[in-house]
């Protein structure tokens, strides 16, 4: 590798001295390391990134960023203060160390690095975030589809100003009550299949009012006063209901969207607040869907870059050892019966899968040729990786690329847990019969829409009782957490303004398992 690199860079030939030595970092060093890594990342690995912006921050600022879900700008809300207080307490007691970096899916791509980091860590962070994550953000279809990285910072700026203006006009508590409710429904603020078209609510309302007035004026006739009142029956005709449902776009899975457009009692500014929360939720949705791949990609990229730098002689032995130490703790995967176990480590699995793709491309076994005929032995592993990074999300990535060898390496096994039984049952293990089953189950585990409850607005009576009905389509008999659901439903009722009913219904049989109701508090 070193020779090919030096062919591309004849000027630096013979000048492959270590970029830095020792722990101290300077802005010049960061710049130099960034540029040198760029030669590898863009030139050799063929990555495609947004321009980088690296920001040096303190530990306290890092805590700050944590609390506002990692965003550089955020509107004010008590829950961020709560998060800050908690993180600070953990941090001060030494129960949790801070991340070395934080990266924002924006254009330019902003990476935060902490001033406490050693130069080695800064180099690692730049390779990981400024090249790895950055490439993933720019190229993965999920991000391309759902996020507008060139707008996000501006939009957050707008949101922050808008919320504080609302606080001034309507009072902190009024704003807070809307945001609280919206935050509770944040996970149901995502349109999974269709990208919603933004519409200007205020303008639409005005137009509607104008149309109504024009219609009233045009059709006014004093004789109407003498007509008997319309009976209720007409509104309850099935066709009417169907029409209304169609008009409301039911069933609707995006609760925040539905409320923003249809909640009868909300003011325009309240709708705008819902919209802000909804757009944020939508912005983060790709990150939830690609967590494992995203980290895998970034880890793979930093490992590759650091190794190549070392091969060129541009890193000292000490730096390399420090790097390897922190790299291996990042990708450490404890076993299920280990006290440290807290689920599959996305870094570990992601990194392993990326390396596996490379292995299958270059040194396939007979088994690999069987399982991955399109990939095995093709040689262009970097091309294969770039394709995987751009066209998959965690769920489909696992389905497509998890190889029997990895299942064996991780010694994965699938268990099923029936709440009615006293013990869990092992369904499949890392053997010939089990590979496909393990892979299928693991893929489902990474499917966000299968992990979140499947909730939809199924009925809304806008002309009569104004009752809103939600349906939870229960999969495998897993009901909602009762107290949480009722509290959240209360928030929902607060936004809707009238009675809200939540029906938990079996997905196939249609049997109703449970019902909750909430009325808005005055």
């Amino acid at each position, binding site marked *: 590798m070193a020779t090919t690199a030096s062919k591309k860079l004849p000027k630096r030939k013979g000048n492959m001295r270590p970029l830095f030595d020792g722990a101290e970092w300077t802005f010049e060093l960061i710049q130099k390391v960034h540029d040198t890594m760029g030669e590898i990342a863009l030139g050799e690995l063929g990555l495609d990134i947004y321009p980088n912006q690296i920001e*040096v921050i303190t530990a306290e600022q890092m805590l700050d960023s944590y609390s506002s879900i990692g965003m550089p700008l955020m509107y004010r809300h*008590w829950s961020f203060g709560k998060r800050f207080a908690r993180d600070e307490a953990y941090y001060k007691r030494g129960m949790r160390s801070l991340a070395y970096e934080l990266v924002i899916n924006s254009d330019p791509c902003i990476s935060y690095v902490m001033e406490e980091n050693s130069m080695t860590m800064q180099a690692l962070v730049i390779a990981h975030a400024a090249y790895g994550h950055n490439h993933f953000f720019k190229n993965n279809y999920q991000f391309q589809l759902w996020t507008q990285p060139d707008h996000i910072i501006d939009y957050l700026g707008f949101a922050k100003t808008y919320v504080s203006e609302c606080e001034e006009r309507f009072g902190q508590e009024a704003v807070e009550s809307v945001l609280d409710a919206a935050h509770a429904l944040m996970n149901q603020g995502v349109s999974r299949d269709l990208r919603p078209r933004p519409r200007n609510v205020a303008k639409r309302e005005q137009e509607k009012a104008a149309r109504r007035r024009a219609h009233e004026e045009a059709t006014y006739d004093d004789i109407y006063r003498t007509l008997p009142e319309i009976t209720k029956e007409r509104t309850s005709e099935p066709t009417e209901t169907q029409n209304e449902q169609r008009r409301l776009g039911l069933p609707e899975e995006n609760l925040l969207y539905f409320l923003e457009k249809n909640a009868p009692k909300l003011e325009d500014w309240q709708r705008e607040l819902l919209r802000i929360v909804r757009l944020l939720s939508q912005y983060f949705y790709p990150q939830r869907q690609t967590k494992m791949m995203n980290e895998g990609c970034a880890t793979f990229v930093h490992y590759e870059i650091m190794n190549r730098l070392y091969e060129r002689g541009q890193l000292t032995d000490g730096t390399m050892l420090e790097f390897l130490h922190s790299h291996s703790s990042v990708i450490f995967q404890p076993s299920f019966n280990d006290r440290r176990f807290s689920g599959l480590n996305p870094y570990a699995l992601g990194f392993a899968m990326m390396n596996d793709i490379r292995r299958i491309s270059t040194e396939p076994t007979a088994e690999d040729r069987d399982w991955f005929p399109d990939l095995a032995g093709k040689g262009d592993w970097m091309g294969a990786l770039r394709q995987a990074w751009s066209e998959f999300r965690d769920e489909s990535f696992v389905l497509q690329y998890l190889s029997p060898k990895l299942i064996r390496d991780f010694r994965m096994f699938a268990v099923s847990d029936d709440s009615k039984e006293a013990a869990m049952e092992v369904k499949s293990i890392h053997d010939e019969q089990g590979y496909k089953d393990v892979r299928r189950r693991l893929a489902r585990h990474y499917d966000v829409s299968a992990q979140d409850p499947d909730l939809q607005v199924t009925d809304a009576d806008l002309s009569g009782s104004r009752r809103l009905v939600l349906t939870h389509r229960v999969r495998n008999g897993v009901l909602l957490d009762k107290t949480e659901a009722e509290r959240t439903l209360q928030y929902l009722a607060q936004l809707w303004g009238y009675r809200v009913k939540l029906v938990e219904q079996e997905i196939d049989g249609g049997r109703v398992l449970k019902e909750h109701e909430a009325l808005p508090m005055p």
Partner: protein
Amino acid sequence: MQIVDRRLNPKSKSLGNRQRFLRRAKSEIREAIKDSLRSRKIAETESAEKVTIRSKSLREPSFGLGRNSGLRDYVLPGNEEYKVGDEIPKPQGGAGGRGSQGSPDGEGQDDFTFTLTKDEFLDLFFDDLKLPNLIKVKLKDLKTARLVRAGFTTDGPPARLNRTRTMRKSLGRRMALRRPSEAEIKRLEEELAAAEAETPPDAKKIAELRARFEHKQRLRRTIAYIDPIDLAYNRFDRVPKPTTQAVMFCLMDASASMTEPLKDLAKRFFMLLHVFLTRYYREVHLVFIRHTSTAAEVDEETFFRGTETGGTVISTALDEMLKVVRERYSPADWNIYAAQASDGDNFHDDMPRCLELLNEEILPVCQYFAYIETTHGERFNDAVETPVWHGYSEVARRRRNFAMRRVASPEDIFPVFHELFSADNAAA
């Protein structure tokens, strides 16, 4: 690439969030603070406070799948011996879902621990309270000015005239301007007289002498002995001397009639007062005086723990307090606060002496004197006046820096304290 150094950006970007958070949890935090006071020493209240609140208002619910129903499955790493069909007993506590992610913010329960800074703690603690007598004299004016010599000035009140300096300047001026001295005039006069007495008179000499004499006399008249220009006054600067220290006297009846619960009530009150004072003074000293028929200064432990037998003579405690004030806490340098707790009993003949001590000696040097009467529930009745209550009522009517209240249970302490030190009361 661009590198931005954000380290110098304004800190505490999240201050607004923090304030909103504290406002939200205010009532719960206040509860927690009250709880935490019970187990503390009086002087400990001023440190930063770790607060655990069980907060309804901090809940962030969301729709999530429950753990206790249905069928779910996990893929776990690290299989050692399991085969298909094996059964794994569920871990205790229903935490079968270790394989899946926990809830996003990782908290199932409502308990929430965090640290309040000392300021936040005390702000919440006092909220709308104001220190008595300080409402008018705002904290920044709570300073006695001290006069410090600062050279001389040419103007000032006669009392400040610096005579030495004035005379020195006068002398210098007179010498410089050659103001004739009295002796010189006298000598000339004598010479003139001698010349006139001469026979025959030397008219030329006389005229010369007379001219000199008159010149000198004119000089003497024109050049003042003390000119306004000579005046030197002592100059003083008013240097503000912050009185940043306060002493708090805790007086308590230690006779057997003060039972443990009553002492506990008193302790809470002392504690609150102490916290309150530390809010305003950099240094707060505590003096514990307990009394039966005699009084003694003791340490905190003895103060609250020990019980003695004997009668109750309150004036002994007041005497002891005055003695300590005289010895160690000059009212010029110290803000003196006193809090007295008693069950209302006193040796009957002692009351006049108490009132005299209070009126004549203690109240004039005290910023504030608070008397609380701890009573058992059944005696908490205004109709039954204890001797002390009866006697002190008179003082309370006439003195603004004297306050008295009754406390029957721990719940009463805070409201009573609030009432004693409320802004209205202090302004009245």
